[in-house]
Every structure is written in C-alpha cells, then in structure tokens.
C-alpha cells in the first residue's frame, strides 16, 4: 500500500496545572495536578502521500509533571519540534487572532503496552505506545497519568481502530529550567504514514461531564476538496475553499514546513462547538476525491476485525492525536502580529 503522510497541525493547547487534588477534574493528570484543555485548534495537511501533524503545548500553573495521552492512527516515522506560528497563522486566516487558553482532557486488555518511540521536545517527554486500551491505560497509570472514569471506554473505543497512542508528559520544572514562560507553547510535528486524514474528536470530551462544552478549531489542507463525515450537530464547516498562495507561502516559511506545496491545496476549516455528551464521533476525511469517508474512522461503526488497522489509517490517527498537543507560542503571536 502506498504510504501516504498526512500533515496535521493541531491547534494550541494550554494545560492548566491546578493545585487541586489529582482527581478533581478528571482526564489525564500528572502527579501533582490536573490537565485541562479549553479549546484546541487542529491542522491536517495531506499532500502527495505525506502527512504531518503540528501541535503545541502551553501550560499555566505550577507543580510537577503532567501530560496527555492521545490515540494515533499509526506509528509515526518522525517526531520533532515544529515551527512556531503555523497554527496561529491558520487561525488568523479564518478569524482575528485572539489569545486563547485551552484546557485539555485527553485522555488513558490485552497484555502490556509496547513503547515504540520515545523523544523529548523542549519540556515535553513524548512516548508512542502500542497496545490495547487497557494496556495503554495501565501504562499511563503506572507512569503518573491520572485517568477519569470514562477513560477505559474511550481508550477501548480508539484501540479498536488503532493500537497506537502517544503519551505527552509536560514537565513544568524542566520548562522553568529552559526558560519557558507560562502560556508559552512548544509545537511538535509528527509524521505518520496513512491512507486518509482522520481527526479524533471524541477524545476531547474525555473526563468531562455530559453538559460541559467542547470546542475546537479543525483545519484541513488537502490536495483537493475532501469529503467529510459526519455531518453532526455541533460540527460546523465554516470554510471550504482553495488555500491562497499567500497562506501557503506564509506556512511554508515556518520551520520544518517546507514540505508544503506553494499552491494547489484546499483549505477546510471546521469549528467544533458542542457538549461532551454529544461528542461520540471523530472526523473522517476522504482526501482521495472518491467521496467515501469511512464510517469506521468517524466512530459511527466498529471494525469487524481486531486491530491493527491498515498503516495508512493508523498514520492518520497518529497525526490527529498530535493535534491535541498544539500550543500557541509567545513567539508565534509576535510573528502573527507582524502580519497585521
């Protein structure tokens, strides 16, 4: 199968490290506090078989380490620091730049989880795992992540489609040592082979009560107009148009974004604005032009066969997962302001 990479840049996530007990807010927590994400922004770029995820983390608070676990569609081939302002430039494309803080809840069978990749990006410790929902949840718990009561079901929900997860631990103490300030983001780019783009959305509801709001900005850059699934209440396609050469030129000039074409891409911007109880789906994308986004990818039907998934789909999921990690850098804001 032709390996295709999807470039996915995820929006900015600010992790609020609270002084409350570890269980106070549910979701994935570190040893000393709670991680929460208010709103996320996601970019998925898919061109000529290449997929890239760009995400960033920012945090506010004090204490020790905290982190997040996100499902991946496949094993990434590269995890590295991304450019500083790609997501912010995209947000500016569709709306005026605003200072945003996000709370992330992300979210923790079948033996032990297998660690297949470990790396560090600034103050982030990133581990890519392979295993069933219970195995990954066990790894998360044993490595200091706190899991909310819905985590076992959510992890199984994703593991049924792909056994690959990415755990990101944010070390506030190391961030201080590196001179990172509160609210400053560390963007991460992940390359994952995949057949089609896919954005996990349900995980954004992890640890939230049913009536709690879930908001996210999802950007897609594909070679042609994509077909999307589902058409759900709370998921709004606010823009679907060719990406302007100026936008592509700006994005290409960011660090490690030179893989992006200078023209010929289609920009889709979706806005997620719903409640946790209503968010039981993911965003399936068919970028091939065939108009057949997968119901399985959308979480609307289950796979008959157990994982693993085809490498392409797995890759997409990995990219999507990384999206959760995006953070707005202070430096990014400065560059965005320079465009005004």
């Amino acid at each position: 199968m032709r390996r295709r990479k999807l470039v996915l840049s995820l929006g900015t996530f600010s992790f609020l490290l609270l002084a409350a007990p570890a269980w106070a807010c549910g979701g994935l927590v570190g040893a000393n506090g709670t991680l929460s994400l208010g709103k996320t922004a996601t970019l998925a770029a898919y061109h000529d078989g290449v997929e890239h995820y760009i995400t960033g983390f920012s945090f506010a608070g004090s204490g020790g380490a905290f982190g997040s676990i996100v499902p991946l569609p496949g094993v990434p081939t590269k995890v590295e620091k991304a450019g500083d302002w790609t997501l912010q430039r995209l947000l500016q494309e569709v709306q005026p730049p605003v200072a945003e803080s996000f709370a992330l809840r992300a979210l923790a069978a079948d033996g032990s989880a297998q660690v297949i990749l470990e790396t560090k990006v600034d103050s982030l410790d990133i581990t890519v795992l392979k295993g069933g929902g219970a195995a990954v949840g066990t790894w998360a718990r044993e490595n200091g992540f706190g899991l909310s009561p819905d985590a076992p079901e959510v992890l199984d929900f994703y593991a049924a489609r792909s056994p690959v997860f990415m755990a990101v631990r944010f070390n506030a103490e190391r961030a201080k040592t590196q001179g990172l300030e509160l609210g400053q983001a560390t963007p991460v780019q992940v390359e994952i082979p995949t057949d089609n783009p896919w954005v996990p959305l349900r995980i954004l509801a992890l640890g939230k009560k049913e009536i709690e709001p879930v908001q996210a900005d999802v950007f897609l850059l594909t070679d042609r107009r994509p077909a999307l699934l589902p058409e759900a209440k709370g998921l709004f396609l606010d823009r679907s148009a060719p990406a302007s050469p100026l936008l592509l030129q700006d994005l290409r000039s960011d660090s490690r974004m030179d893989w992006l074409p200078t023209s010929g891409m289609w920009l889709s911007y979706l806005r997620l604005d719903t409640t946790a109880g209503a968010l039981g789906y993911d965003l399936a994308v068919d970028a091939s032009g065939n108009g057949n986004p997968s119901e399985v990818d959308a979480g609307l039907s289950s796979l008959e066969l157990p994982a693993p998934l085809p490498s392409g789909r797995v890759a997409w999921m990995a990219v999507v997962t990384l999206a959760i990690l995006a953070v707005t850098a202070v430096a990014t804001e400065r560059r965005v302001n320079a465009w005004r």
Partner: protein
Amino acid sequence: MALIGKITGGAVAAMLAAALLGGSSSSSDRTVEITIHHSRFLPASLEVAPGTTVRFVLRNTDPIDHEFIMGDEQVQARHEKGTEAHHGAKPGEVSVPAGGTASTTYTFSKPGTVLIGCHLPGHYAYGMRGSVLVG
C-alpha cells in the same frame, strides 16, 4: 449397613446443599461475582432474601482502580465526601485495584434496598452504582 447408608446419604445431602448454595464459604450463604468493566458494575442489580449473607467477588477489568461500597444513601454520601484511600476492613466496603480482584461479605438483615457505589472522584456521578433489593 444401615449406618453406612445413613452416613452416605448424609454426605450426599450435604454435597447437594453445597452445590445449591453455589459453593459458598462457611461464613456466607451465597457468592456473587461482579465484573467491573468501563467503570460499570455488571450486574448492577440483584435480589436477595432478608437474612442472607452474600460474599461479593469483584473482578476489575479496567486499567484504573475502583471501589465497591454498600449501604444506604447516608453511607454513599459519606463516602462521596470522604477521603479514605483504601477500603477493606469493613464488611461491604472494598477497594478493587486496576486489573485485580477483591471480595467482601455483607449480610442483608432487613427488607429494603441497599445501594452500591464507587466513590473515587467522578465515578459515582459517571454512573458507577447499583443496588440490591432485599425482600
């Protein structure tokens, strides 16, 4: 011969009684196995006769810890606000580790409804609860 017959018959009767009672221990009339999966008790409800002592065997298939607390609304409310990290000393209250098994025994002395709940943060509100109808 008659004595042997009586002894044999008595042994058979005892074995039958033990089988009917589900192999219960000497301190319980009945053993009930409850599986914890995706933060739910399975089964979440059952019926017992007044005066029955039940040994509950909890099997936790989740990768997170849970607990099994039996009692009325007052008991449930107390545990919801409480901060005990571990249960096991009191009948009807036991912590069940991730992927593990635990057991507790409870005597249902009078008719009514006995509630079941897990009061780790967020679990009860999530729906991790059940009940036993005594009557």
